[in-house]
């Protein structure tokens, strides 16, 4: 299972990086989305994968397996943050498109001169 997850994370990072290198802003944002999914899954996998256990300790059977709650809390935070930022980037790209009429990063050069 870990190996499968590692492959998925690798694929997400690979495709995300490829999309980041495109010139279109929309593809760039898709790339950011893929990268942040990859990062979240990595966080999840690194916390240790366990099947069918809750992150709660049952006092009567203290020996039982428990899932580690920390990575879940971390991912939840990371997902919320990346959701908010992605929404912001989408609006920003829309406004930039309205102002410049371009979806091409190479055309957004007026601030570099």
């Amino acid at each position, binding site marked *: 299972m870990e190996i499968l997850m590692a492959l998925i994370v690798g694929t997400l990072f690979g495709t995300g990086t490829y999309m980041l290198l495109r010139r279109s802003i929309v593809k760039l944002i898709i790339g950011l989305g893929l990268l942040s999914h990859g990062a979240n899954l*990595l966080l999840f996998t690194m916390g240790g994968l366990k099947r069918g256990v809750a992150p709660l300790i049952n006092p009567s059977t203290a020996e039982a397996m428990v899932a580690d709650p920390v990575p879940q809390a971390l991912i939840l935070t990371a997902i919320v943050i990346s959701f908010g930022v992605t929404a912001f980037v989408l609006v*920003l790209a829309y406004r930039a498109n309205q102002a410049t009429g371009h979806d091409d990063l190479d055309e957004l050069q007026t601030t570099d001169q």
Partner: protein
Amino acid sequence: MMTWMNCKPPTNNMMTQSIVLPVLIPLFTGIIILLLRGRSGVIRVVSLVGSFLALLTAVGLLIRVAEGDILVAQMGGWKAPYGITFVVDLFSAIMLTLGTLMGLVVQIYAVGSIDRGREQMGFYALYQFLLLGVCGSFITGDLFNLYVFFEVMLISSFGLMTLGGERGQLEGGLKYVVINMVSSILFVSALGIVYGTAGTLNMADLSEKLSAAAPGLTTLLASLFLVAFGIKAGLFPLFFWLPASYHTPPPAISAIFAGLLTKVGVYALIRVFTLIFLQDGTYTHNLLLVIAGLTMLVGVLGAVAQNGIRRVLSFHIISQIGYMIMGLGIFTPLALTGAIFYITHHIIVKTALFLVSGVVEHRGGTADLKKLGGVIRSYPILAVLFLIPALSLAGLPPLSGFFSKFVLIRAGLESEQYVMVGVSLFVSLLTLFSMMKIWNEAFWKPRPESEEPVLPDTEPAGSAWLRLMPIAALALFSLLLGLGAEGIYTLTYTAAATLLQPELYITAVLGRQ
């Protein structure tokens, strides 16, 4: 597994819990401002009072830790490493004081210069949340918490950067947002690997547990953190977002960005490389030294080629980040003292220069050095107020820049880093050159014939004073830092000495005797 269930909350001392005040005050000020939507007069007062209170608490903390003590607060009474820990050592307290001081000073400038539209769209609330993120990053003792405060800071800065929606802001803002998102994603990935390796994210706990991990893995982690924080700090070769975006928002906003945001990245680098990644010291610190040299050189050479005032200054931010990282790379007590001294000096001087450039651009109607001119005749006070921070930046005695560079270069000579010393002196010279370029073009030469003469200032007199006062205060601070260099040196030396004894930090946080 059962041990953490049985741990009792420690007695909550009000004195130790009060170290989170510099975070709580901007948070509540921001919320109050959001509730007061529309009443701009009240909002300004609330925001100023909030920034002032935050400064007071930060100064209070600085006084309490000035002897090198470390204050620790465990949130909700959960003992480290299970709960969220806030830690204030002298380095944090110095950064907090500077951060809140800039917060107050730039805000006074903003009251006189931010237009009504931006005020209505929530400038002050975003500004307070930005300060919340900055202050939080300085005092947190937990890596994931650091990520959250980084995000608070970044999201507010995204808002401030694009507030107003002018074309340049949107273009620069897009680059700024995207590259900072990539850096955050790398940061989260690094956090995942850290958690998988050590099973903790508390910095003090990590410092102990990572020393048992495989050395190859810690070097990998160190590199990931170096890239993630390096993007935020504007290190070579990851700085291209900075000069593309910092000159686009209104001067008050770019001044607070220039003063504080990259320095949060530098703070994180110093914290992580003095506390956590010490196992493979020579490799990472040599890498840091090479990066520092290249950052200095490329930044200053970039500045020489620019013609917009704030573009020149943006490139100088990069070159000066190099000096701070040089101090971290040499890694002796004296070098770290130099780095902290340099950060102190840089935050004050850089903010002052951006504020001056705002006034020059406002009066001259353009940011282009070729079209500007004659400010020394039309506004002599401003010329003096530019000269003090500009010469300080270049490192002329008796200003603050001289002493901070002196300490760094002395540390470089003592540890026989002659190449770095040479590079830093050369970069100093080029810095002086480009400060003189701004001086000659904007202040000294007469205004070009083709340009319209400077319009008489039609603004209310109060607004002009609100712009001048903060600049004068910052210039005065730069002078005082230079004249009181011995006191500042002692303070920063204590801070550096504390940083170089990570066991002090670990004992304080984990509560062992």
